[in-house]
């Protein structure tokens, strides 16, 4: 549980949340009609951890989240545990989970404050304490001035902050977020993402966050669960996922990855006209490497590959080149921002041997 010092000490005192670990035990899901949305899944989420389910649309992220929430039950044999408690047969209203949806799902017939108070009212928290806790939560989310507003008078970002406040004010055992930023425009998405990040760290709550956006996943997750077609492709920290992808799918899904073909013979890997020391069986290989791990060669001597620039995109801090080598697929290469290379120029490239990945 990563809690930043300073103001967070005060924050977690006031909104003390138990950091409950969650365990999924063989949780698969087959929908009536026979479609298997989720292969049996085993996963332990640590108390206070933010775990992100990442994958393309339809890969089973929402289904997994709904199994944790209690909105779907796993296929027979699957179990969901909150701490030591088996909650598999508890309906959502008795699991004490907080939910945040892409569509906000705020109650349109209630004001901002009434929305936030709803969970406390259902729990029969007394009027005075209810008012106090709602006010505190609205302040925490910078929503104090909107307390009396109707929902249709709020922007998307404000609505999602109300949804977060409504979910958190009841001190849930776990916070479940399903693509909470997807409906927002890019700029709001960034600022709300930072706010969610701050909140999750400060409250120390166990959180499960679903997204198809790898940028969000990398920024928010203590660990990322990459999913594909109802299976877990890899579980790991953002760095592990980025630098040691478990397979070609993860490699391609996270960031940009180049595929470089070469041949190994007697401990030497030949790529284009260059050669590097390499341990591995003899024969043709396909290796992966990131755009930042290919550089422009400083001289003829260290060049591995030659090619022609098919596109050059200036990104401010760097210039991203797409280079077409004599044979093989185009390579994406990051160079200095102040480069004056352009389309049609011929370049020689050097691959960093330490950064080449052999992936199944």
């Amino acid at each position: 549980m990563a809690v930043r010092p300073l103001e967070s000490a005060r924050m977690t005192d006031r909104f003390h949340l138990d950091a409950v670990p969650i365990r999924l035990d063989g949780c698969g899901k087959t929908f009536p009609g026979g479609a298997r949305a989720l292969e049996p899944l085993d996963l332990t989420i640590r108390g206070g951890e933010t775990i992100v389910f990442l994958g393309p649309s339809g890969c089973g992220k929402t289904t997994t989240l709904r199994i944790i929430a209690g909105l779907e039950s796993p296929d027979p044999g699957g179990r969901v545990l909150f701490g030591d408690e088996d909650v598999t047969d508890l309906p959502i209203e008795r699991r004490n989970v907080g939910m945040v949806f892409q569509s906000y799902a705020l109650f349109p017939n209630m004001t901002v404050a009434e929305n936030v108070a709803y969970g406390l009212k259902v729990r029969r928290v007394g009027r005075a304490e209810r008012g106090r806790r709602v006010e505190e939560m609205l302040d925490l989310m910078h929503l104090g001035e909107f307390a009396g507003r109707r929902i249709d008078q709020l922007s998307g970002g404000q609505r999602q902050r109300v949804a977060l406040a409504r979910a958190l004010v009841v001190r849930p055992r776990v916070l479940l977020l399903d693509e909470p930023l997807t409906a927002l425009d890019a700029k709001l998405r960034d600022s709300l993402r930072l706010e969610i990040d701050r909140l999750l760290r400060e409250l120390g709550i166990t959180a499960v966050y679903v997204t198809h956006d790898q940028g969000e996943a990398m920024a928010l997750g203590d660990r990322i669960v990459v999913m594909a077609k109802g299976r877990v492709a890899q579980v790991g920290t953002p760095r592990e996922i980025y630098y040691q992808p478990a397979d070609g799918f993860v490699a391609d899904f996270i960031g940009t990855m180049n595929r470089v073909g070469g041949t190994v013979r007697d401990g030497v890997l030949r790529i284009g006209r260059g050669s590097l020391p390499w341990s591995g069986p003899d024969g043709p290989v396909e290796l992966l490497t990131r755009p930042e791990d290919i550089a422009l060669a400083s001289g003829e001597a260290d060049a591995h590959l030659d090619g022609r620039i098919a596109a050059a995109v200036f990104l401010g801090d760097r210039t991203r080149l797409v280079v077409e080598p004599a044979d093989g697929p185009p390579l994406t290469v990051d160079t200095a921002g102040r480069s004056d290379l352009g389309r049609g120029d011929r370049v020689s490239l050097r691959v960093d041997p330490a950064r080449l990945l052999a992936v199944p």
Partner: protein
Amino acid sequence: MSACVQHGPGDLPRSAASPRAGRRRMGEPLRLAALLAPAAILFAAFFLLPLVRLIAIGAGGPQGWAAYLTTLADPGHLDSLASTLALSAGVTAVTLAVSTVAGLFLVRHRFPGHALLVALLTFPLAFPGVVIGFMVIMLAGRQGLIGTVTQALTGGKLVFAYSMAGLFLGYVYFSIPRVILTVMAAAEKLDPRLEEAARSLGASPWRVVADVILPALKPALISAGALCFATSMGAFGTAFTLATRINVLPMTIYTEFTLQANIAAAAALSVLLGLITWAALAVARSVAGTSVAAAG
């Protein structure tokens, strides 16, 4: 006048008028006037002129305008008005309750025969009041199903077709389909995430109904209920089929008009019936309007 609030067969209820139907460009008043002219002429010819004439006839008897007061003060008329209001309110309440439960059930549950059942539901929409009355007699009349069954079971024959109870049954039967269809249309548009959010906050299924589903259905229920109320206030065919002495306002108007030849009283009562029904609809529409605006 009662014809104004009676609804033709197959006439589906419409939701309350949109409050935000504002026109952006007011720069072409001439074209606007030209466009509105046909509607204005129709409105005047088929609504305004007959209405004014009706109001005038009400005051055209020997008593003049005082006829309205006399008509209103008549205990028989007041009685008829009260029972018509009570009947319509009762029909509306029962219809809304039954249709909301049934409509929600039909939207939430799929079972074999679902589509057929929904299709069958629209059947009574096409029946004129006479047929509804006929069906009530077949069910609860002297040779009716209920009479036969109760006679076999208890020895006494239960017959209630030719009374207010029979009329009540007929109106509920006639009103339920269109309200169910309205509820179903509204319920299909409910966002399931709203209910899931409420449940995640600890709300029991009943609380979800009270706090999420009913508020979301409220505008549809109000407009469907208003139409149901207006239809019951003005319907005539069923009452006429069941018994000529059922004391509801449309029957009273008919009696005054054809049997007593008291045309002024009939006209005054018609205006009254129209006004009350119109007021009920207006109130319902404004309540529905504000709650729609509040719901965004």
